[in-house]
């Protein structure tokens, strides 16, 4: 029964040793993330797809021009 599975997993999980970060690492992570608070996603997330699209478009244009050159 599901409830029994949940309860039994809760029961045994209490025995797992506690895991935590050391304070210095936790502070470093918090400081780094806090720095980006409210700034929105980084621009590189937009820039990279644009660059990739431009490269692909350039390559496609080059292919078309080559084809025209061969046919002409």
């Amino acid at each position, binding site marked *: 029964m599901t409830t029994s*599975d949940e309860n039994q997993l809760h029961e045994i999980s209490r025995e*797992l040793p506690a895991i935590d970060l050391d304070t210095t690492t936790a502070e470093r992570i918090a400081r780094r993330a806090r720095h980006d608070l409210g700034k929105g996603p980084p621009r590189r997330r937009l820039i990279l797809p644009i660059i990739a699209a431009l490269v692909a478009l350039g390559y496609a244009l080059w292919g078309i021009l080559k084809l025209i050159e061969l046919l002409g």
Partner: protein
Amino acid sequence: MDADERAWVEGLRRGDSAAFDATFAAYRKRVYGYLVRMVRRRDVAEDLLQETFLRLAQHANRLAADTRLGAWLFTVAHRLVVSWSRAQAVRAQLAGDIPQRTPDPRSPLEALADSQAQLALERAFAELAPTYREVALLVGVEGLAPAEVAEILGHTPEAVRQRLARARTQLAAALGEHAPATWRTS
């Protein structure tokens, strides 16, 4: 969703760093525990924890007022684990038959265990297939409801319940004599 959490969400939406600090303090240990038990490497877990909270910070002003922060953070953490696992699989495939660094059979988690029972339990969780382990961790350790876990993982609640049952069965088998008495009779 309790009053504290509602206040943190409001604060995050306004870019209040105190609200971010409170959220980080409340969830860092839980999310880190989940990550470290999923990827089984502290350095990777730290990187993924940082990325999880970076995304919270970057999306803070776009959070809905009724956002459940726990579910939000575990959803991001789960997606990061999936991406990392895929990247690991691709790397392993590209490496072909180049010998890989063999992982230390005694994980850093096992080093934390201070009894044979804890060691057996940590190993039993580690031996679970990742799809069962994540359900067992989110429901068993984090106390999330199967419906909430279904939302986080993008599965149906029924699929989560099935995985939960299998995880429990496999844990009981792996624990053997260390399994609680009630498990052995059920």
